[in-house]
């Protein structure tokens, strides 16, 4: 007997990615020869893993507990049977396709079908393996292509002129969530194994500020890279290199609110979003150089890791207080805010709207599409950024997760 397994209900290899949130999968019998059972032979689905690989768990329907294996009755007529798979929390992948979802007939041990997949999760940048780090850096360098690549759009999205669309009001967190996702999807178009890592600005990060990674600063604030690091060719706004001078010990940061303090800011969004000042603004200005001014911050790749941590903190806060539902008042700060900061507003630049009160240009076009999810759409609204795991509505899932923010 042979079976075919599809992840995200797609035969496309680009769709074989899982996160902690459940993903629709399906299985069908392609060759019934040797099938045992009345019309629907029992098939057991499980994950084949190694000690350091990602791992996957399963369940039959949209609710219920996940398990390491799942028994399904699959008809011999070739009809699909749906099931759900998710990354096993705490077991993200370290490389592309390092997990196999496999099917066995009944209690037998013979594999009758399998498909490789990746549990692609945003991780602490300080803890990436050297291979993960190198793939991330290479993808980022290629996206920038010495200032000539697609990254220039992301640079142009975050400027002094456009900043009111993204800062100083409730849309700060939703806008940056969309911005990071757009960038991450572009990185994944270059290397599908890459997930954007985050910089824990309240913890020592000895690995990040090294020549093999995001570079080592001298007293002047010039950042140096190793000869094998493609970021040595980084160029933005016509100038080669990165300026960044830490005002703190990168092994022991101080002066920025800790995660515990940030999560304790309050249980309603108006209280929580004061994190835009500290830790967010404080993390930016814990350096001299590009990253410490709003108009130049996106010149430095570190900016995206900093914001990934800001987004992770929001995700953690959302989970701790159940603030995923835009219909729940405490999940957002509703009021008469400038355009782009209210739940029903579309977000610039993905909406393509230019001219006052929006900025004069809209670089980059619509949101990059994903082969695994449809949310948040090509022109996301503020409200589309809240239910990022699809807890309230499964189709709202944005296709990313953090290594320390589970789904359940």
């Amino acid at each position, binding site marked *: 007997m042979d079976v075919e397994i599809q992840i995200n209900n797609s035969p496309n290899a680009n769709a074989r990615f899982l996160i902690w949130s459940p993903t629709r999968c399906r299985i069908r019998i392609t060759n019934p020869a040797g099938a045992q059972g009345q019309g629907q032979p029992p098939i057991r689905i499980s994950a084949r893993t190694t000690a350091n690989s990602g791992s996957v768990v399963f369940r039959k329907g949209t609710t219920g507990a996940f398990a390491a294996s799942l028994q399904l009755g699959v008809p011999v007529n070739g009809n699909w049977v749906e099931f759900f798979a998710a990354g096993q929390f705490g077991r993200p992948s370290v490389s592309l396709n390092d997990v196999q979802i496999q099917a066995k007939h009944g209690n037998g041990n013979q594999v009758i079908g399998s498909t490789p997949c990746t549990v692609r999760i945003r991780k602490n940048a300080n803890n990436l393996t050297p291979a993960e780090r190198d793939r991330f850096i290479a993808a980022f360098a290629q996206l920038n292509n010495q200032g000539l690549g697609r990254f220039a759009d992301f640079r142009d999205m975050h400027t002094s002129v456009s900043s009111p669309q993204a*800062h100083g009001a409730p849309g700060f967190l939703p806008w940056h969530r969309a911005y990071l996702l757009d960038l991450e999807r572009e990185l994944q178009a270059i290397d599908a194994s890459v997930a954007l890592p985050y910089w824990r600005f309240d913890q020592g990060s000895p690995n990040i500020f090294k020549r093999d990674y995001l570079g080592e600063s001298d007293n002047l604030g010039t950042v140096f890279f190793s000869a094998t690091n493609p970021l040595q*060719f980084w*160029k933005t706004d016509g*100038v080669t290199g990165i300026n960044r001078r830490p005002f703190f010990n990168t092994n022991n940061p101080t002066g920025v609110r800790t995660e515990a303090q940030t999560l*304790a800011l309050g249980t309603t969004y108006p209280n929580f979003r004061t994190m835009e000042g*500290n830790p967010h603004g*404080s993390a930016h200005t814990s350096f001299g150089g590009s990253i410490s001014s709003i108009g*130049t911050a996106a010149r430095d790749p570190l900016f995206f890791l900093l914001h990934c941590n800001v987004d992770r903190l929001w995700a953690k806060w959302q989970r701790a207080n159940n603030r995923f539902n835009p219909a729940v008042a405490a999940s957002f700060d509703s009021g008469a805010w400038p355009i782009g900061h209210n739940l029903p507003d579309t977000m610039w630049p993905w909406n393509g709207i230019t001219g006052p009160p929006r900025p004069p240009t809209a670089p980059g076009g619509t949101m990059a599409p994903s082969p695994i999810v449809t949310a948040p759409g090509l022109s996301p609204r503020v409200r589309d950024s809240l239910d990022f795991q699809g807890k309230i509505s499964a189709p709202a899932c944005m296709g990313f997760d953090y290594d320390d923010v589970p789904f359940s």
Partner: protein
Amino acid sequence: MTTKKRGTKKSKSAKKATAAAKKSPAKRSPRAAFAVATDEKKTTAERAKAFAEAPLATIASDKSLQESLNVLRDRSQPIKVRLAALQSLQAATFSVIEFEPYREDYLAALRELVDDPDAELRQRVLGILSREKDGYVQKRLLEGLQDTSKALVPPEKALQLLSYDVHAEAYPVAREILNAPPNPEAKREALRLLSADANSAPVFEKLMRDKDEDRDVRQISAAALQAVKPKRFQEQAREMLLDDKEYDDIQATALTALEQFGDEKAVAKDQKLMDRVDELGKGKSAKVKKSAKRFMSRYGGEK
């Protein structure tokens, strides 16, 4: 038994974290923190910490902004407190909409500080204004490069700050410094500033190939040449890879550039280069081996 013990431990830890968060200064209201930050009777450490704690408190009202700016401008205040005030105000600038009414006052105050006697404060202020593309500061930095008696910061810093908004008038000064650098850092920063200047390509090429040059200078020159004359860079990188007396790290840089940004067609049909990279991949240098492996992986020459 074990499970129970673990559970107890976790619970204690969770309680400890909650208690820590409750006790932490973050629980002090932003207004209370700001009161400490501006209270001259408090210690320097207390005031600096309080400024860092609540950046948005500096722009809670026009009064609080003016108080913050007064601390920043007042040369009799401890420098640590002034620097903390600056860092806090700059953090508040990220809340653009809330900061907008105070922006002009803030920038005007910063312009008053470009001649401050404290070098660190001066440098930070110049950095912020340079990133704002402030014409006054650009003019002062250029003047300082042309006449050292007017210099606000060392030449290497001035060049770095001017690179935030490169204007053609900075190029002649940068070229002069490149020809007669006062120190290695100034040479490096002059190169960076010139990296968008296609007319400087011959200089980049010369420095990149010069084995007597500092490694960083050669690396920056390679990156600059690759950006303005990629074809020429590729030719030179090839020569450097074929040269068995070339330094490992420079060969690794050349390999990394070709692997990441090279002209795929030209590289892939260059059998002599392929054979050489294959050979380099079997050498002793870890850096070169790593770059060679990636190169061969991209160009399909793995053997």
